């Protein structure tokens, strides 16, 4: 009986300690490593601080894609109400086109240009990232037929 209780206690203590340790790690990690998603309107409305990483999503603005030297490229992300210029150095995904959905990861610089470290496009012709759909719905640019 005693051994049984002891073992139960050991088990409970082990679970508690592990739980607290994992909980502390999770809280610590969530404090600094969460990326917010903003639509271009959000970016304008919320005055996101320069240098803070976040994800931006919307449509690639028509005739906004400009290729610079090397692998530099610039384009603009729009949700119909607001537009944010984006700079990127790298390979654009195969499904990146004007007028199509896009999500970019990066931060604003002091001049309000979004410097992207990663650009994601939707996975196929029929599919839109849910965040982009949501952003477009909020700005009233979403048609169910799309």
């Amino acid at each position, binding site marked *: 009986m005693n*051994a*049984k209780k*002891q*073992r139960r206690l*050991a*088990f409970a203590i*082990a*679970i508690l300690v*592990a*739980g607290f*340790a*994992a909980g502390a*790690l*999770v809280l*610590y*990690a*969530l404090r*600094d*490593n*969460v*990326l*917010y*998603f903003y639509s271009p309107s959000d970016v304008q409305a919320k005055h996101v601080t320069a240098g803070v990483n976040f*994800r931006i999503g919307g449509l690639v603005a028509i005739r906004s894609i400009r*290729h610079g030297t*090397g*692998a530099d490229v610039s384009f603009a992300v729009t949700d119909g109400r607001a537009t944010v210029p984006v700079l990127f*150095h*790298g*390979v*654009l995904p*195969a*499904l990146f086109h004007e007028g199509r959905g896009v999500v970019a990861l990066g931060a604003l610089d002091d001049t309000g240009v979004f410097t992207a470290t990663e650009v994601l496009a*939707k*996975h*196929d*012709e*029929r*599919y839109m*990232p*849910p*965040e982009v759909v*949501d952003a477009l719905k909020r700005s009233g640019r979403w048609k169910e037929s799309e």
Partner: protein
Amino acid sequence: MTGEFGQLALCLALALSLMLAGSGLSGARAPAALARRVASASALGMLVFVALAFSALAYASIVSDFSILNVAQNSSTMKPLIYKITGVWGNHEGSMLLWVLVLSIYTAMIVFARRANERMTSAALGVQGLLAAAFLLFILLTSNPFTRLDPMPFEGAGLNPLLQDIGLAVHPPILYSGYVGLSASFAFAAAALITRTRDWVAAARPFMLAAWIALTLGIALGSWWAYYELGWGGFWFWDPVENASLMPWLIATALLHSALATERTGAFRAWTLLLAIAGFSLSLIGTFLVRSGVLSSVHSFASDPTRGLYILGLIFGAIGSALALFAWRAPSLEEGAAFAPVSRETTLLLNNVFLAAATATVFIGTLYPLALDAMTGTKISVGPPYFAITFAPIAMALLLLVPFGPRLGWKRADWRAALRTLAPAAGMAAVASIAILAFTTPRTLAGAAAFAMAGWLLAASIIDLLGRKLHTAGTIASALAHAGLAVTLIGIAGTTLWRSEALEVLAPGETMYVGGYALRLDGVVGDSGPNYQAARANIAVLRDGKVIAFMHPEKRFFPAEGQETVETAIRTTIINDLYVALGDHRDAAHWIVRAYVNPLAPFIWLGALVMALGGLAALWSRVRRTQTAPDLIAAPAE
């Protein structure tokens, strides 16, 4: 015709699954021998009709029967035959049908493997029948693959070209074998609770092992596919969909270890039951995450809220009733033998604590963004840094303990003797870390730690294999599985810590440099495949001024789907991968070329293979043992 035939087969399978549920559960009572026979027959009948329905869909896809909506939306006449077949599960409806097919196969295996307690087996069949009925109903109500399309189009919309790849073609069946395999241990756990059977683990263990092996291989295959097909050079992105498959694997690993103790000494009896329930619950949650369209990924075929709601209801139903059953019956479970603080049981306990904690961190990182969005509308994403901080330390602590388990005896053990046999492993760890610090650039402490850990694990496995006079299959299995962990760790550390990367715009004749190699673009030519056009680069690889190889990365355009894919070229020496992807072209002559040198990358998947081999060794010895000596299986406790 094919459509009606498939539809009929599905309806009959549903009827049989209901019959299986009813007869199986009533067969859990002692005298109901007839019910048990009916249950066995319905299980086999269900397999036959699900297989017929699946074949009907495969046939429709092969002959391009576009009068069936599913085929018209996901296939085309231009598609090669192999992808017409594998494309059957490359969409939501077909993949759910595959899910039920795998479930039916496991159910039939329970019938044939029946050796243990008849009543418990019958109850397990009944639970499988309930699950099959729920999923068949889901298919018929919300995701019918045989829905008609009128008028019939001349050409189908084609399959997402990303999925037209042999690695990804076999990934779903293997991963499903893992996901659904956990349903068998779930069913046995529930059956043990229903029939108050004490020794249920022996009957369920082959299914746990099979599920774990399949999950290991399925996850490795998915990661390998992401590595060579997506063109980003990475192997794991902590994408929610990847996490959805990792969580059941972590719990299945915990289950295998805790079941070991339960079977041997009766320790952790309630906990093992709980893990069996949790493992399958996470499979269901994974299915929900992946199929409901709440996540954006290559796996989210279509978002339809009714489907998500149905699966959510199914999850709550299954998990809720299993937990209720557990709460009702588990307190009456008799405790196993006591064990000392230094014993194999303690190491297995710690293994489970760490694995459960690791699962919890992944679970929070995966579901917290979804919960936050649902409650406040704030959209966030949790990326790799979160998992690096939470998952990695827990995993490292667990790995540090791994070598102790196999060399401590049950109930009471001598830790000094265990430490003595581990001295060479500690030496190996020290040598590995010093070698890393001395010979690699950039010099990283993380690298030294990872290699110390890998050396520690590998040496301990080798000591296990060499040092004992008598080998049991269990020793070999655990040594292999633990060595596989070390091999994977080496690959992960090498690739993430010492990768070199280059991105250049090249015209023919120009050269770029990455990690000691020079890459000269000789030209880009047009090419065409059965259902795509391609731009194919010819790149000469030079080392010390001499051409050592040619590589041909491609960009493919699929007209039927209106989509492009990247075909990377990978040249591997096992020690490192030279990885080249062709990007956009800037004008007629200039192309973006992205290249990586990923040191030790192949070890990631090699390690998974070794782990699976360990699982196979355990499974093989288990199956052989039950065949030669059925009386070794514990008698039911009435």
